[in-house]
């Protein structure tokens, strides 16, 4: 049985390894998140906004040309059609409602690809709350359109200039900000990482993905479960949402696609499940990339959203226990997969999402297989990264 225990562990992964300065805020969340989540009024507001504002349910689309190519039935769960262009907004809608119920006035977030930053800036505008987004200086450069979107939405974008100046460092800065603002601030984490209760909270808020998937599959195929679900994993929020209602259905293969960067063993990679060992990152006991001395290693991926040296504790448990399989996809394969999907189905995926599509090349199929790829986001933000590859992908 895959479930989180009372102390916030999935198996041996999880917990809340936080300094005392964060204790009051984390404890407040831990005591309240389940009650708020189960509260009828919260569910009513959450569901209404997901429907009327985000545009849910997102379609489950039968990708016929992709299916013909692979010789299996492939559905795409269209999170790219969410308002703001990725699954990230499911979480931020939920957390902004939570922040309002906790009486918080100031919202902070970290972002890698900028999708979570945009989704947070969006809900802050919606709620009329102050928004500060920490973003690695490197990511600010490679995801420029999203930086402008955040600013247009009224958020302040603060560069994180330590370490590799990417997602890990932005997360460090957001945590430090929260330490400095213990009373009025809520931290909207963007992935299924961090101290308990964040990983479970994120999984619940994203679980609408698999909830809809079940119903849509039943309607379209007569079965409520696919044979396999593929999702890219940065910290693991879109994967957690796509897997959620199937976690305890062992007949459904869960395939977690990580970023291999320039190659798993190139020294420039973010393939945490291969390269990671157990340790503590951002308050959670999980798998992370580190030296023998326990210093966290700077990861690398062409995609800002997967450029993270850890994975959420749920995924560490799923992979360590054999419930999920991990596949690592290098930059080049991901870019090719993005072009392939664009040409086959007329959909430009986010570079993060493209890793999940590239993994399709690594599976064996029989004709009656039904697969779902979680299309976590759209690729508009990545055009600058894709453009140099236009020539070789004519």
């Amino acid at each position, binding site marked *: 049985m895959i479930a989180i225990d009372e102390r916030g562990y999935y198996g041996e992964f999880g917990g809340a390894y936080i300094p005392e300065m964060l204790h009051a805020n984390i404890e407040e969340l831990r005591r309240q998140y389940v009650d708020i989540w189960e509260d009828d009024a919260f569910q009513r507001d959450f569901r209404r906004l997901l429907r009327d504002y985000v545009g849910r349910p997102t379609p489950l689309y039968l990708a016929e040309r992709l299916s013909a190519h692979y010789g299996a039935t492939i559905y795409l769960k269209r999170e790219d059609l969410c308002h703001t262009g990725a699954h990230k907004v499911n979480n931020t809608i939920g957390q902004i409602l939570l922040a309002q119920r906790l009486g918080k006035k100031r919202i902070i977030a970290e972002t890698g690809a900028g999708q979570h930053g945009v989704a947070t800036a969006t809900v802050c505008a919606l709620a009329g709350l102050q928004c500060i987004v920490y973003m690695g200086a490197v990511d600010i450069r490679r995801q420029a359109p999203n930086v402008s979107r955040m600013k247009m939405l009224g958020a302040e974008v603060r560069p994180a200039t330590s370490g590799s100046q990417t997602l890990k460092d932005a997360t460090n800065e957001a945590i430090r900000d929260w*330490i400095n603002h213990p009373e009025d601030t809520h931290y909207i984490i963007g992935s299924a990482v961090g101290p308990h209760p964040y990983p479970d909270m994120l999984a619940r808020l994203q679980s609408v993905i698999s909830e809809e998937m079940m119903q849509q599959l039943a309607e379209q195929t007569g079965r409520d479960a696919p044979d396999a679900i593929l999702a890219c994993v940065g910290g693991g929020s879109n994967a957690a949402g796509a897997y959620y209602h199937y976690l305890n259905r062992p007949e459904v293969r869960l395939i977690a696609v990580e970023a291999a960067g320039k190659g798993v063993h190139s020294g420039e990679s973010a393939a945490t499940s291969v390269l990671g060992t157990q340790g503590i990152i951002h308050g959670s006991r999980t798998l992370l990339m580190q030296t023998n001395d326990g210093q966290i290693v700077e990861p690398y991926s062409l995609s800002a959203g997967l450029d993270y040296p850890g994975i959420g504790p749920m995924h560490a448990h799923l992979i360590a226990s054999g419930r999920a399989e991990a596949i690592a996809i290098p930059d080049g394969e991901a870019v090719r997969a993005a072009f392939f999907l664009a040409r086959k189905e007329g959909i430009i995926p986010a570079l993060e999402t493209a890793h999940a599509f590239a993994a399709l090349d690594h599976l064996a199929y029989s004709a009656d297989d039904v697969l779902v790829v979680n299309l976590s986001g759209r690729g508009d933000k990545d055009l600058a990264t894709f453009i140099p590859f236009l020539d070789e992908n004519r």
Partner: protein
Amino acid sequence: MNRITELFQRKPHEILNIYFTAGYPRRDDTAPIVQALERAGADLVEVGMPYSDPLADGPTIQASGTRALANGMSLPLLFEQLADLRPRTRLPIVLMGYLNPIMQYGDEAFFRRCAELGVDGLIIPDLPMPEYEAHYRDLVRDLDLGFSFLITPQTSAERIRRVDELSRGFIYMVSNASITGAKNAISGKQIEYFRRIQAMELDTPRLIGFGISNRETFTTACEFAQGAIIGSAFIRALGDAGGPLEPAITRFVHAIRGIQVPIH
């Protein structure tokens, strides 16, 4: 007797605990800094084990850690330096660092090695109390090591009682809701918090840290606790020293203590 316990019995006020990062500014400065601090009149040293991602630390301590790691500092190397140093100083030594490097070293081996080398106490800010109770409390007691938990202005009275029960040596009282390195004067709100904690009459002595940077803030902190901890301001002094460290260290400690330094 544990040197920290002995210190607080002998001198229950105006304790000056100086924090610095092992391996900063140079790899082999660890031992000379401790010895210079002892000669200058510090009561206690807190040696930081550098970490790539120190969540509770501000830019000054972060940068010192980054530099120390680039200098090749590591836990095994720090233990070598301490083995060498221990016979040459009587100052109580507290190691401060984050849990992950300790886990990778091997947590139990780490505690045992600390005791063997004559380390007197530990501060591991991201080790939660329940984990400590379940896995380390007995070991720490058996090894007669000190162990300091943190309290902040947000820590509930109930939780402070638990910290008082679990801490050995001293309680680390974080002066303000902040990461390390603040340079402001102590506010009325902080004084209120200091008074509130003082009135609780805890069993364990308290040292106030975070934002203690000069004689004024040190003296104020000492009115409400047995002493105070200075970190970022000292690291800045080391960074600014330019040449040999000892004169800068002496000047720094004397300035905190209010000792007039004769001008030759």
